[in-house]
């Protein structure tokens, strides 16, 4: 029985949330639904951890669905790269489960909370599915599952603008998803296969055709829409600003990262670095867009008065770092991108959780609303400072490690201009984080009722777990960097 369980673990990552979502709908009450969500996410996290260790020791795992062998049936394929992403997604989901209860009780009507948890579970199911599947079409289906559930999650925001944000995200996201579908169709046309490894084997024979080039273009643009690469980022600031706080934290930390993972998977495993970056000038295109994203996102963040919107624009900039890392297609660059996927996921999750805690207290989240809260909510405000420092990339935090790796990668290729852009963007992030910190600590509160009330313990604890994880990854970086290096080596090795 135990060996059976161990061999079934990969698919359980997808099946558990899929089973839990309808159970939430059947029980129809807020508290049991929350409990089911918490149980499922922690179970997934435990499974992800076991699998991570298993992959680390024994190498990639392949799981065959329905007894059909790989090129024909759907295969789940776990290697160093996607275990990193799975660990991030399940970890954030598990910690968000602690956070969500109080935050959701305050922001979503009680009778609709069960739907919220069901949608969150489906979103988790989709994200994990994208991360572990080895089948291109299956990836599209899971991408749409996670996107559809995140549209509905965003639409649950309290303000009416949440509806329009969700609608705009739906339009952009569906166009992105359909582009991906067209791209996969082109690949299927030329190779007759949907299994990623199998496509990769058959592609070199036909890679000179216009069809494959068009397929690559459609896939890159479709996925870029999903992870909001400049200039396809229009939907992101609104969606993150008006979503319920717990949703902002969860989606900002995971959804865009998983979409980038999908892009990395397609570019390096399916097409191969030699084709996408050697034969086609994709690296240069992505590099330019990444730099523009880094600078424009940071500049836009400086001029925001809404803290959540400020963080959302900073996400646009941070996606730029990740894409810059992968656009160099070197081992160091890819390592930096992977490390930053994890670090930024944790940091942005923590920052949005702080924003949610401030919102819980003030019922509003503009910089003027949070002024002076440093003394009233000391723990929450301190979490913002530490996570903000990590976002800037101060030494002894996770953000420093990935930015350092990125600088190293840039210097390796002697792109001094890029190094300057990274530094400028980091300085800009000092300004926007500094504005919030200044308001928190050095301004008088807007109202003088003088209550010193922290957010609920569960929210503060969850935030600090993420902040702690970020600091831990800064002080003790070798496991993450080593895993990212192995994953990068695996990607470049299979691509050559």
């Amino acid at each position, binding site marked *: 029985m135990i060996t059976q369980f161990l061999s079934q673990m990969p698919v359980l990552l997808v*099946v558990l949330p899929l*089973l839990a979502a309808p159970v939430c709908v059947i029980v129809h009450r807020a508290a049991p639904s929350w409990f089911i969500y918490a149980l499922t996410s922690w179970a997934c996290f435990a499974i992800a951890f076991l699998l991570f260790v298993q992959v680390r020791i024994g190498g990639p795992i392949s799981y065959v*669905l*329905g*007894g059909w062998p790989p090129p024909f049936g759907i295969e789940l394929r776990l290697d160093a790269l996607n275990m990193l992403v799975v660990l991030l997604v399940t970890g954030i989901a598990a910690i968000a489960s602690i956070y969500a209860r109080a935050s959701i009780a305050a922001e979503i009507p009680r009778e609709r909370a069960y739907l919220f948890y069901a949608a969150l579970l489906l979103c988790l199911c989709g994200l994990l599915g994208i991360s572990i599947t080895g089948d291109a079409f299956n990836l599209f289906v899971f991408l749409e599952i996670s996107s559809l559930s995140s549209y509905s999650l965003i639409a649950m925001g309290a303000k009416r603008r949440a509806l329009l944000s969700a609608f705009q995200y739906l339009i952009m996201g569906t166009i992105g998803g359909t582009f991906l579908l067209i791209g996969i169709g082109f690949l299927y046309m030329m190779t007759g296969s949907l299994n990623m490894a199998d496509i990769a084997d058959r592609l070199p024979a036909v890679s000179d055709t216009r069809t494959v080039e068009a397929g690559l273009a459609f896939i890159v643009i479709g996925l870029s829409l999903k992870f909001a690469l400049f200039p396809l980022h229009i939907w992101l600031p609104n969606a993150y600003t008006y979503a319920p706080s717990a949703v902002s934290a969860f989606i900002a930390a995971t959804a865009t990262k998983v979409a980038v993972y999908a892009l990395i998977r397609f570019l390096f495993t399916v097409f191969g670095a030699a084709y996408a970056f050697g034969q086609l000038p994709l690296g240069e295109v992505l590099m330019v867009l990444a730099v523009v994203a880094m600078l424009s996102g940071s500049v836009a963040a400086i001029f925001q008065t809404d803290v959540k919107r400020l963080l959302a624009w900073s996400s646009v900039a941070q996606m730029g770092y990740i894409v810059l890392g992968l656009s160099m297609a070197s081992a160091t660059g890819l390592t930096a991108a992977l490390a930053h996927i994890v670090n930024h996921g944790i940091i942005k999750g923590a920052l949005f959780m702080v924003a949610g805690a401030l919102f819980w207290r003030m019922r509003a989240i503009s910089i003027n609303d949070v002024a002076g809260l440093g003394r009233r909510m000391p723990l929450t405000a301190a979490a913002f400072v530490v996570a903000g420092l990590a976002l800037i990339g101060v030494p002894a935090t996770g953000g420093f490690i990935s930015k350092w790796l990125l600088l190293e990668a840039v210097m390796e290729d002697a792109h001094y201009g890029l190094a300057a852009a990274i530094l400028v963007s980091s300085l800009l992030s000092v300004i926007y984080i500094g504005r919030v910190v200044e308001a928190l600590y050095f301004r008088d509160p807007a109202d003088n009722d003088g209550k010193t009330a922290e957010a609920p313990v569960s929210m503060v604890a969850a935030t600090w777990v993420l902040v702690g994880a970020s600091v831990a990854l800064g002080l003790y970086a070798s496991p993450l960097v080593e895993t990212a290096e192995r994953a990068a080596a695996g990607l470049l090795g299979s691509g050559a």
Partner: protein
Amino acid sequence: MREHTVLRVVVKLLIAPILIFALYVQFHGDYSPGGGFQAGVIFAAAIILYALIFGLAEARRAVPPGVLRVIGALGVLLYAGTGVYAMLSGGNFLDYDYLAHDAVHGQHYGLLLVEFGVGLTVSSVITSVFYVFAGRGRRREQS
């Protein structure tokens, strides 16, 4: 449309054959064209037809939204549960070979169960979507 006697009689005659045809498409889906999606939509079409002619309140009384919610969730559970049952009897997820004593029967049961789950979910979700949209406008008119 209560006063249209012809429509009411014709619809009363039609609904039963539509439902039976839905069941036929459902349970012959493993041998001939058809299956859960198609059957679910046909089944839902019968309920929607009923609602169009006899009114939403009548339809809600015949097929309550709360029941639809539970059935829709049960369909997903049936689908995933079939896969989990295969896992518990020693196979991989959705490996129908392990559902019965031999592979042929196993495949047969697996297809039937999974398609039935799909059919349940599709029919109840389509009907729920119709209820939600139709009910929304009505509530606005009243208010």
